[in-house]
């Protein structure tokens, strides 16, 4: 029986925790993380405040509607350095020769990126306090929307890390992840669906993409306050798929 087969869930998490601690600390060791968080919060909050003042409704809907489009460039900015930086500092070899399974390393990096994203997302909580102060917002819907935003980030981070593992160049990793993001978000946009359906009316490719692959219909359900098992499964399976692909791409480097 090989080492890989013997790794228990508890051992897997113990190793992942060690990598997680280092990765999370590395985010806050760098001024880039603070700049990233500040720019993300300013952009997301100003987008929301604009519609808040124009519509005059005590509702966080516009914030969460804009989020997928903001994450297209912002998540790749988090993940692009994840593996490329290891190659640049030659620490990839160090990491891969420590007594840690590749899966532990991938999970540690993924969970640290997710934790960093969650911290940045939590920076929007003052908006909730402001809405509570000004009126009576639907808290259930807001909580569901935050869950959707967290799952959306988890999905984006999974393919962002996968893209970073495919190349040693941070810029290439950024562009690849942003292209993934565009594809998954825009394939759920009404106008894109119409255009794609118009290209091949017999096959309705736009509708097919919308119904099977696009992230928007699954994400938007959370915005309506609906937490459906199908949507939870979509995010879990898609994120799991890309995390697994990241793991497999690391294994490939041994041959």
């Amino acid at each position, binding site marked *: 029986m*090989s*080492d*890989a087969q013997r*790794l228990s869930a508890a051992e897997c998490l113990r*190793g992942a925790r*060690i*990598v997680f*601690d*280092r990765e999370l*600390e*590395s985010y806050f*060791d*760098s001024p880039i993380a603070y700049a990233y968080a500040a720019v993300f919060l300013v952009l997301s909050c100003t987008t929301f405040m604009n519609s808040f003042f124009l519509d005059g409704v005590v509702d966080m809907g516009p914030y969460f509607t804009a989020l997928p489009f903001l994450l297209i460039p912002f998540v790749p900015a988090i993940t692009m350095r994840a593996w490329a930086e290891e190659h640049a*500092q*030659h*620490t*990839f*070899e*160090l990491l*891969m*020769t*420590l*007594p*840690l*399974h590749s899966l532990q390393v991938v999970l540690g990096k993924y969970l640290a990126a997710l934790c960093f994203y969650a911290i940045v997302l939590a920076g929007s909580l003052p908006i909730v306090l402001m809405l509570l102060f000004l009126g009576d917002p639907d808290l259930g819907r807001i909580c569901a929307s935050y869950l959707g935003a967290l799952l959306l980030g988890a999905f984006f981070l999974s393919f962002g890390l996968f893209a970073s593992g495919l190349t040693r160049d941070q810029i290439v990793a950024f562009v690849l992840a942003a292209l993934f993001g565009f594809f998954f978000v825009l394939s759920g946009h009404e106008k894109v669906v119409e255009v794609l359906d118009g290209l091949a009316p017999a096959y309705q490719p736009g509708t097919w993409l919308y119904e099977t692959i696009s992230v928007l219909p699954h994400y938007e359900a959370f915005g309506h306050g609906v937490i459906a098992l199908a949507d939870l499964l979509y995010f879990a399976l898609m994120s799991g798929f890309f995390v697994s692909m990241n793991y497999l791409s690391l294994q490939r*480097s*041994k*041959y």
Partner: protein
Amino acid sequence: MIRVESVTRRYGFLTAVDEVSFAVDQGEIVGFVGPNGAGKSTMLKMLSTFIHPTAGTISVDGLDVVEHPLAVRRRIGYLSGDTPLYQEMRVDKFLRFIARARGLKGDALQQGLARAVELCGIEDVLTQRVKECSTGFRQRIGLATAMVHDPPVLLLDEPTHGFDPLQVLAFRDTLRALSPDRAILFSTHIIGDVEAIADRVLIIHQGRLLGDGRVEQLAADADIPGAGLEAVFAHLVRTTTPAHV
């Protein structure tokens, strides 16, 4: 402790290591010598489980490196030629991360850290960021990461790179002090390091092992009895390389 049997490693059409066999026993310090691109680093990468051999078998402490990579990694201390360090981290935090990843905790972790810090003489830079340390200190930090868990096998790729002459002497003393309990294999371009501390020499060129033995024995085999390692090395490499203008 280390057994390498008929190992070949290919990168596409390039054969970096070709049918190499050797062994290193406990208590031995073995120097791995060869020109640039000879296959030294590739061999160490395979021993460290970073890459798999294309053919042949490698075992460390009786464990196959492909079948039991995690168990092998617990038994080795490996310093790769690039001296891989997280530049933004503080030295003490970096060493703690490595020690935790190598399975140390509690008192064992504290003792391992204290021992590696003392052996490598890096007390003065513990609270500095790695990127603020000099080249020599960075190399010593790299060595500390390889020694923190007190492994029975040490694999060191160019371990004295960036050292000043005094640091080289100190390093040789450290290696000698460590050798009775473990198998040590180190690669280098510096013939003086090998002559000063290695019990045995492996000479590799173009992926093939040209010599394995003590310097005197290699010199006698090459029909230049009494010659030093430099002369033996040059003789073996030249007789297997086509002449260039």
